[in-house]
């Protein structure tokens, strides 16, 4: 066990020597890999920032049930138990609020500041309505359940229009889903780029250290002993590039946030992009090192087998 540990320490030292060797062009390779990684990291940072907002929006979807103007108040009131029954049947629960046409008109006048214009209408054009605030919706994946409830409510007698206020949330959800898929595709493509860059870097190292490899074999080195420094080199390359890419994204957020703050202020929002948290950062660093390791693994197997 101690011997194995010693050999790992030796391999790590050798990989550091490769790392700092002026001939290796290692820092240039780190830069290339970092550029490739920074794109998906930036995308992930944006998604991670937007995700909580979309989740918050979807917590309490609202359904507005508008009755036709001809429906008498008694019939509207009689619809309340039917609405509650629909909720029960769909295993949903929520808060139902009746908004009389008179109340709605008052609110409209107060809110819009168009009391004169509304008075000019000569009558109340607004219908009686219910506002149903659904609870227990943890995520947007449950949006289909809202559609089921809405279609059942539409079938109630006297109901003119059922408006699902979460429609735009669903659109945002679809957009985020599309972004996630695009990011995944981008990450996969750039992951291949990273593996290719590491593959080539290690190939050049194997070629430049051909003599050392052959001599080591002649004096009794095992394949594992020969491979290990290259694995460490690949993993280190990935790790450094990942760290550099994350740092670059975090630095880029600063000037970007100023522009975002100006924009968000127009919507009375304090939205700002923040760098990835500690857990996603560690996960990204591990993933970067893993990509580097994968590239070196493929390269070493291919090129050292040829040397043998």
């Amino acid at each position: 066990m101690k011997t194995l540990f010693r050999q790992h320490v030796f391999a790590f030292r050798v990989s550091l020597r490769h790392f700092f060797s002026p001939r290796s062009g290692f820092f240039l390779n780190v830069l290339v890999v970092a550029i490739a990684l920074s794109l998906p990291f930036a995308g992930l940072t944006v998604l991670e920032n937007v995700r909580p907002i979309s989740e918050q929006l979807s917590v309490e979807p609202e359904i507005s049930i508008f009755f036709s103007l001809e429906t008498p108040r008694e019939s509207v009131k009689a619809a309340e138990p039917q609405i509650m029954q629909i909720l029960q049947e769909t295993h949903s629960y929520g808060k139902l609020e009746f908004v009389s046409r008179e109340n709605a008109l008052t609110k409209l006048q107060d809110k819009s500041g168009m009391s004169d214009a509304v008075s000019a209408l000569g009558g109340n054009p607004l219908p009686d309505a219910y506002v149903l605030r659904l609870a227990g919706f943890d995520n947007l994946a449950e949006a289909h359940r809202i559609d089921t409830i809405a279609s059942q409510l539409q079938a109630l007698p006297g109901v003119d229009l059922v408006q699902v206020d979460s429609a735009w949330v669903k659109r945002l959800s679809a957009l985020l889903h599309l972004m996630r898929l695009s990011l995944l595709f981008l990450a996969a493509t750039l992951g291949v780029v990273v593996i290719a860059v590491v593959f080539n870097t290690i190939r050049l190292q194997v070629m430049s250290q051909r003599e050392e490899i052959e001599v080591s074999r002649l004096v009794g080195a095992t394949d594992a002993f020969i491979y290990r420094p290259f694995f460490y080199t690949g993993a280190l390359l990935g790790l450094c590039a990942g760290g550099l890419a994350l740092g670059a994204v975090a630095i880029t957020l600063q000037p970007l946030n100023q522009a975002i703050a100006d924009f968000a202020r127009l919507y009375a929002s304090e939205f700002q992009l923040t760098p990835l948290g500690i857990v996603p950062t560690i996960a990204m660093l591990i993933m970067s090192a893993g990509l580097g390791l994968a590239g070196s693994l493929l390269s070493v197997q291919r090129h050292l087998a040829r040397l043998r």
Partner: protein
Amino acid sequence: MIEFQHVTKQYSKDAIALSDVSFTIGKGELVFLAGPSGAGKSTVLNMIAAVERPSSGTILVNSQNVGKLKSSGLPYLRRNIGLILQQQRLLYDRDVITNVMLPLIVCGAVPSDAEKRARAALDKVGMLDKAFWLPMSLSGGEQQRVSIARAIVNRPQIILADEPTANLDRVSADQVLSALKAFHSVGVTCIISSHDEQFLDSANHVIYLAKGKVVDHWEDLSPCRELS
């Protein structure tokens, strides 16, 4: 200790390096592989170290069939063999002591112990004062002595020397020969392939190869030499 049984090595239809070669080398012998260029001397040494595999026949090293040894077993065979090559194959970007330490490091030795043993090996070949020099700044003879130190540092049972004095002047060649004799005297089996007939005087077993075949074979030469 080492046994060749009807060994043939054929690279292509017309390129036959060894043809039906058989001989036995006992433990502690100093063997001189003689013969003209292209006789197959280097091939014999390469096969003992499993650098090359026989096309047919059997090679036994310490009762181990080298020809059938799996690649995972090769490093452990080579750790018992010290290789000295005509081209010393030193690592020119490392200092002398790092080169000598390499066989110990690959075995997982503690670096401080490895350095101690490397210093001792360099001392045996008279190169301790140049332990931290780069090989490029050494003469050909000195580089060869460094490669001898590397070959003996892990105390191998067998030393294979392929043209160890080629391209060396007489003084350097004598130093190399003295070093090899010293290891033989402590029971190490030394097999030396060379054109240098000076080795003949020291060898107690001579195998003369020509065109890939054993032409002459003299064993137990030491008693005869003592009588003469």
